[in-house]
């Protein structure tokens, strides 16, 4: 008779076979059998968070920086509901997560038992798929399928709900190799004809642009390498979404910077005026497109995406290529080389006018700001942080708001998986726990969370996690005492009625750091900034850096509401000349 294992043992056997090294979790009544089993599996390290949302974001940071799925373990009821924000965040930003939740015993399901909730019902709209395991015999197959679904196609979160009696019940375990391969949904469908058409379009174009997104990062490091080759080969300009930053070097001359609402003047104008737009792994998000009717009106549009439902969802395209970014770029480059088109030389001539135009836009220097020697400008703080950390392989996470945009604008990334931010859902409180996850995946690397003082208070408790596991994350708070982005919109659109966007009582972040057992650093004027940043980097402990910045600073450039890409609002100077009109207010 084959050996029988408990549900809890089977779960760990699956995790071991999936080569899971870390799980982020929080115990509770309905997962106790799993926690009991933890001690027998030394290859799986459990990270005890302080709130289940933190577990979810930490797993996201872990996944985005390592390319491996993040694993979360929570209890039933509140454990599961607390992780919903993180699951939704991962769903919007296509991050592979596997969440295991405990559930009340099968016979109590539906009776409003203690800590019972309809976990699969609640998480159905925020996962790629979820399962309630009602028979221990299904457990093994379900767990492996969960990993499969989370990591293939367009990645995303999944959840497996395991009732407590299933964790105790026994069944056989068959090693994964012997199990027949699980059927994978949606495979690549593009063919050579698509690639030939793309190259045809590229040949004809005189004002082309690449618009790349998180799909390039999700496709793996190889995709970024191939992208660099393709961009060099074609000589085309390239812009990136918030999530795509790092897949192409931020300091390269062909890179126009980020596009969209707070993108650069040159990137947005190039998007508007181009005659060929090649979208690689991005999804025409509303923060990118601005006014849809006037989005890139003169261009042929190509969309490369692994998810067919992303294509023609918002913007109608002329050529759709469904496939993994790596495969599509590989075929494209191969064909380009085979045809020996030598685009680099022939195109340079053809698109040189286009580059001249781009250079003109560049002279606007849209990321410029008026610096001060009395008060720290937040942009300056990010620039100094970049200058002082660029010599090492640094990982940046952010919260959500003005600081996030300044980080995206002024911190330049050269490699993928170095930039973790909540783009789709825009979750304040993402950055700190994400940094915990990143640091675990990359123990020796410098991990900085560029934060705002309002966001950081939402998941502050995870500092305690960082201290427990000796994770020397750096929390770099741009402290303006306001919910900065809310304040900015109120200033620009709501007649400076700063309703509830000012935090009257803030903790002393330096003392708070000390209370958590980490190091607090404060910078109040530009003279001491460099020295303090250096101090932060040099400490081999978690640090909270309280950087007091200009309270009134706004994030520019900005596509004002109701305007297309080519009508951007630039810094304070330009603003005097272009006031936002009434209709525009709708769009921010």
């Amino acid at each position: 008779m084959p050996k029988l294992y408990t549900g809890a043992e089977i779960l760990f056997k699956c995790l071991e076979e999936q080569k899971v090294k870390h799980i982020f979790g929080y115990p509770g009544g309905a997962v106790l059998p799993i926690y009991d089993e933890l001690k027998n599996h030394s290859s799986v390290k459990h990270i005890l968070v302080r709130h289940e949302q933190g577990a979810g974001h930490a797993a996201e940071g872990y996944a985005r920086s390592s390319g491996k799925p993040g694993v979360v373990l929570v209890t039933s009821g509140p454990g599961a509901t607390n992780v919903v924000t993180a699951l939704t965040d991962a769903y919007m930003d296509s991050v592979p997560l596997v969440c295991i939740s405990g559930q009340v015993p099968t016979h109590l399901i539906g009776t409003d038992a203690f800590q019972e909730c309809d976990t699969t019902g609640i998480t159905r709209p925020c996962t790629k798929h979820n399962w309630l395991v009602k028979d221990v015999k299904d457990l093994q197959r379900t767990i492996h399928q969960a990993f499969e679904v989370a990591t293939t196609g367009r990645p995303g979160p999944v959840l497996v709900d395991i009732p407590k009696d299933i964790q105790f019940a026994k069944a056989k375990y068959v090693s994964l190799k012997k199990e027949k391969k699980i059927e994978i949904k949606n495979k690549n469908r593009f063919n050579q004809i698509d690639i030939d058409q793309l190259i045809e379009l590229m040949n004809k174009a005189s004002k082309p642009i690449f618009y790349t997104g998180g799909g390039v990062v999700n496709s793996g490091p190889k995709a970024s390498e191939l992208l660099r080759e393709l961009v060099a080969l074609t000589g085309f300009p390239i812009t990136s979404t918030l999530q795509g930053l790092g897949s192409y070097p931020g300091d390269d001359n062909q890179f126009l910077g980020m596009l969209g609402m707070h993108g650069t003047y040159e990137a947005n104008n190039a998007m508007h005026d181009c005659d060929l737009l090649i979208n690689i792994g991005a999804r025409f998000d509303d923060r990118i497109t601005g006014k849809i009717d006037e989005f890139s009106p003169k261009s042929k549009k190509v969309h490369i995406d692994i998810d067919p439902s992303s294509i023609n969802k918002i913007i109608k395209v002329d050529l759709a290529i469904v496939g993994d970014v790596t495969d599509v770029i590989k075929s494209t480059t191969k064909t380009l080389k085979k045809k020996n088109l030598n685009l680099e030389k022939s195109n340079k001539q053809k698109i040189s006018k286009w580059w001249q135009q781009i250079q003109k836009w560049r002279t606007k220097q849209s990321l410029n700001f008026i610096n001060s020697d009395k008060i720290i400008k937040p942009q300056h703080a990010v620039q100094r942080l970049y200058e002082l950390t660029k010599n090492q392989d640094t990982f940046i996470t952010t919260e959500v708001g003005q600081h996030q945009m300044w980080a995206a604008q002024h911190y330049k990334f050269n490699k993928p998986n170095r930039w973790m931010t909540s783009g789709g859902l825009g979750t304040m409180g993402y950055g700190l726990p994400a940094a915990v996850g990143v640091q675990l995946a990359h123990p020796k690397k410098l991990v900085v969370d560029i934060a705002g003082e309002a966001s950081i208070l939402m998941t502050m408790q995870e500092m305690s996690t960082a201290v427990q596991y000796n994770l020397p994350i750096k929390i770099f708070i741009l402290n303006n005492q306001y919910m900065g982005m809310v304040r900015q919109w109120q200033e620009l659109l709501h007649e400076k009625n700063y309703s509830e966007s000012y935090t009257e009582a803030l903790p002393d972040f330096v003392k708070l750091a000390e209370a958590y057992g980490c190091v607090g650093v404060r910078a109040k004027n530009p003279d001491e900034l460099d020295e303090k940043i250096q101090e932060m980097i040099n400490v081999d402990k978690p640090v909270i850096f309280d950087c007091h910045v200009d309270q009134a600073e706004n994030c520019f450039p900005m596509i004002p509401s109701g305007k297309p890409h080519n009508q951007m609002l630039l810094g304070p100077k330009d603003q005097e000349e272009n006031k936002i009109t009434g209709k525009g207010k709708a769009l921010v």
Partner: protein
Amino acid sequence: MAKSKSAYSIPSKIGKLETHILVVWVDNEASVLSRVVGLFSGRGYNIESLTVAEVDQKENLSRITIVTTGTPEVIKQIVLQLKKLVPVHKVANFKREDKNVIFKEMALFKIVGNSSKIKKVLNVCKKFNPVILDQTNKSAVIQITAMRKEIDKMTKNLKSHGLISVSRTGAVAMTRGAGIFN
């Protein structure tokens, strides 16, 4: 236009609406219907009617027939979103006007009245394969199969003929000829 301070874009013009019938083959497992319906409600798509039943016990397959309205872009999006669901095997999409597809709905009518009245009702329903499922000396339950609009019309017309209760299904669909949808 009134001043809007919404944080999002103003809706652009809505295109012409079409009615489509979607046939969805799914694994017959717990919560599969909720996934399909949740997709519609979550993304703001319409459901005019929905019919679901297991069609293959061995393969454990159910067939869901959904009548929906939307612009052609929205309909395409619905199909693609449906195909992403893990338990969904395939999705067929037909225009309601499609001549190559048969659409049928079934309705049960409870008529109160004497036999001559019921005879009259049967006569009115003649075109829609009326079947008497139950009859007493002062009532009858009549089953008809027809298109949605025809049933709508019958329901209206029979009010004056003693119709006191109506129960109806959603549409089911099948292509004409020997071929099947793959």
